[in-house]
């Protein structure tokens, strides 16, 4: 039974305002045989410096400590990979530390970086994440990923992480989705949207112009999930520069964009879904207890919380994050989000965990058209566009970099630089990718606030990273 003490429900507090000054990322791909990981990290850092009109050396001169997100040592077959990257970036002898929290590694790296600045330890830090998943064949890759489940109780069961995850999807599919064809089509729509947005993103690994039927006819991975419902396996790097106010102002004096306020909060839940025990739903600021009284009546079997259908870690990351940053209602207060769409169905589960829709009603966020850049029903801007990067399904899931990629994507919108960064013909060429003839500017007009959710495995670690234009705080 989980019951919170008063101390555990303290609203996290940063001792001083913290800013995202700039960010950058490498190309993402299933395999990048021509480059070492450190080359990809240098690509990311170089872009971060260019975006604020600095040379890499100039940018480096501000960095005081470094936070490195890299999940799977066994993929790269290199312990202390952080020390390799740190040396190749020429940042010795600064202090640095490695962070690993599965799929949430990128978000957790930002969490550590923000706290380092908030505490006053450093005025400017580097948060860099990467992953290299192309050094083993796919089935061995699946084996290595399955090592992130409990090795005695779960991993021997097929060594396939999708299976451990999909049992939760199945329960959600039957209880809250009522196993309806219409819900299955809604899930497919998410894959169509994310592969579609990836077409406009030169960094993205899996751009595809597909239909709902293409998704529904793709090979079954774990029913009802099919190949096109699943996230990618990737190689790539992403970084962010986090500063205090004074340093942020100084570093952006010649930059086309201003620094953004940043908050990161985190939650967790059992590594084995098997160990989940019942509890009351922790309420977000836009919810009340009454609205969930009849949840089990409306969705028979849905009264067990978090059961196998909710992600308590995500709920708590939002619980802490919203209160920390002053968010009352994500749908009203935020202008865009990047969510951890490991699978189409977990995307829907997350809508509920973070309060975009109440528990049981996640599908409406897609069906209403609110989640789109342009609502296909009304032709007007979507109310809260999600995963314009293409997300984990369309853009990448280079695990240690993912949460930072999402944060970078949100920032490009608030900076009003999305088209410049994603539309540059030179970049498409450099990455050896063809810019589509119907390339569309997906800038979320007037974006001032956004959030990225970084999520590990079956929900063991989740972070919420909230970004705001400092002139539009809540």
């Amino acid at each position, binding site marked *: 039974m989980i019951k919170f003490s008063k101390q555990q429900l303290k609203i996290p507090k940063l001792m001083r305002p913290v800013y995202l000054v700039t960010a950058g990322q490498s190309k993402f791909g299933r395999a990048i045989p021509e480059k070492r990981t450190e080359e990809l990290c240098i690509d990311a850092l170089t872009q971060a410096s260019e975006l604020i009109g600095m040379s890499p050396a100039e940018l480096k001169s501000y960095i005081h400590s470094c936070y490195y997100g890299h999940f799977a040592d066994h993929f790269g077959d290199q312990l202390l990979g952080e020390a390799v990257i740190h040396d190749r970036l020429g940042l010795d002898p600064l202090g640095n530390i490695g962070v690993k929290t599965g799929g949430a590694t990128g978000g957790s790296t930002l969490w550590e970086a923000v706290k380092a600045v908030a505490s006053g330890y450093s005025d400017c830090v580097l948060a860099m994440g990467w992953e290299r998943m192309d050094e083993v*064949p796919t089935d061995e890759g699946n084996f290595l990923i399955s090592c992130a489940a409990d090795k005695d109780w779960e991993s021997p069961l*097929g060594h396939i992480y999708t299976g451990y995850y*999909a049992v939760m999807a*199945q*329960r959600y599919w039957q209880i809250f989705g009522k196993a309806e064809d219409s819900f299955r089509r809604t899930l497919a729509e998410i894959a169509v949207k994310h592969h579609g947005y990836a077409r406009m993103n030169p960094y993205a690994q899996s751009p595809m112009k597909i239909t709902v039927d293409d998704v529904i006819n793709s090979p079954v991975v*774990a029913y009802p999930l099919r190949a096109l419902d699943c996230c990618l396996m990737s190689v790539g790097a992403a970084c962010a520069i986090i500063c205090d106010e004074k340093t942020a102002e100084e570093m952006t004096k010649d930059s086309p964009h201003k620094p953004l306020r940043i908050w990161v909060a985190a939650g967790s839940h059992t590594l084995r879904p098997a*160990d989940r*025990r019942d509890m009351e739903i922790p309420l977000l600021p836009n919810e009340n207890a009454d609205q969930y009284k009849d949840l089990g009546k409306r969705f028979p079997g849905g009264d067990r919380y978090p059961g*196998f259908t909710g992600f308590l870690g995500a709920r708590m990351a939002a619980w802490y994050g919203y209160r920390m940053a002053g968010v009352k209602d994500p749908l009203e207060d935020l202008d865009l989000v990047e969510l951890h769409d490991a699978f189409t169905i977990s995307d829907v589960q997350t809508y509920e965990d973070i309060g975009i829709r109440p528990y049981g009603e996640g599908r409406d966020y897609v069906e209403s058209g609110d989640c789109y850049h342009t609502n296909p029903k009304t032709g007007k801007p979507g109310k809260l566009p999600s995963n314009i990067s293409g997300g984990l399904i369309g853009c990448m899931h280079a695990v240690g970099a993912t949460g930072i990629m999402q944060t970078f994507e949100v920032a490009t919108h608030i900076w009003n630089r999305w088209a410049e960064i994603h539309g540059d013909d030179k970049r498409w060429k450099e990455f050896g990718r063809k810019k589509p003839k119907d390339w569309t500017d997906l800038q979320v007009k007037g974006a001032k606030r956004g959030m990225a959710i970084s999520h590990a495995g079956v929900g063991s670690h989740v972070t919420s990273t909230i970004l705001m234009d400092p002139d539009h705080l809540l």
Partner: protein
Amino acid sequence: MSMIGQVFVKGGKYKLKGNFHHLTPNMPIRNADDGWKLMGVTNPRDMTYIHMYGGEAPFFEALGEGKLLGTRCDNPDCEYKGTVYQPFRIHCADCLGKNTVIDMTETAKKKAIIHTFMVCERSGAFNLLDKPIKFINIEFEGVDTILMSYLSVGEPEIGKKVVPIFRTKNPTYTILDLSWVLEGTPKEELPEGFSF
């Protein structure tokens, strides 16, 4: 043929016999699109880990004897005294007291239903189960948690009753020694080596 690595413990020390790793030469990786220039090398490796079950050892031993052990917090000072854990948990998650080991084979035989399931067509390397793998999560009456396992006979469905089967012949001493079948499955249909 070299001997498979084996271990026993004596006097608190590991005693090793046989080969724990096998040497395979590395090979160059070349670029077929660019004059077969060198791009990298393969790094083969085959190792055997020595893994201890610690306080969970009785659980894995019992599977091969046809028993499902769980644990219960009996700490009178624990706010949640009486919590029953399956997966077998050595210490109570709430008070961290040492749990009491309980035999819950009969509960599992009479009061176990499928909480959720997944039929998985794929597996990772080193998988030993037949595909498709039917993952099931099992809800037991009076137990606070929901065990993950696999169904060997029958089609899974939420709410269906299942009974445990145990690999009592040549057990592997892993979680794979525990499996499930739908209630009413005749003995003849059990997989090789398993019994009720």
